[in-house]
């Protein structure tokens, strides 16, 4: 595709429910990242994939958060038993090797999650 695509763009859910956020990276990009953007908090790293494996999961806030990537492409971020503090914009980004070693990140528009 032309860019990183995330769905849904907005999600309102009740506290305690599970949610699944999807990211379609740019075709051919091997690296995929999830970040969380909270009001006044900047960008918080969640998890990074190289292909289908996740070398760095250090940013996941709790065991309620998990992510997977299949076929070296689509990734899903799952939040179980959502809490109000999970409300934020969840950003996905991908980067490829074709742009050189220091390939920059290409971001999606994000999913705005609101937990009521």
């Amino acid at each position, binding site marked *: 595709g032309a860019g990183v695509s995330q769905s849904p763009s907005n999600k309102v859910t009740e506290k305690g429910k599970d949610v699944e956020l999807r990211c379609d990276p740019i075709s051919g990009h091997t690296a995929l*990242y999830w970040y969380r953007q909270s009001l006044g908090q*900047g*960008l918080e*790293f969640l998890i*990074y994939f190289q292909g289908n494996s996740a070398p760095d999961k250090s940013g996941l806030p709790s065991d309620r958060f998990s992510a997977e990537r299949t076929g070296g492409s689509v990734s899903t971020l799952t939040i179980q038993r959502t809490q109000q503090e999970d409300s934020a914009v969840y950003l996905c980004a991908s980067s490829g090797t074709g742009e050189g070693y*220091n390939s920059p*990140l*290409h971001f*999606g528009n994000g999913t705005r999650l609101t937990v009521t």
Partner: protein
Amino acid sequence: AQRVTQPEKLLSVFKGAPVELKCNYSYSGSPELFWYVQYSRQRLQLLLRHISRESIKGFTADLNKGETSFHLKKPFAQEEDSAMYYCALLVYGQNFVFGPGTRLSVLP
């Protein structure tokens, strides 16, 4: 541990005035640094990276390893420069650590 700091949450300048957005980093390896920008209602996008040593939209940034800084500068700010700016550090060639961001407001 790797860390990026941006001391100013909000920076307001008048149109035509010089602007400098500060960024400092902490990293034991060879730093690779980037500036990302998010305009209102747009996605976060790359503004410039230090290895390119380029000027984008009039902005430049020089890596100063002695001061561990990568400040973003523009001699004459424009209203369309108003946005959120994030400094980012590439760690071990894999992960990106972002600073907390600075909101730049250019006043008419």
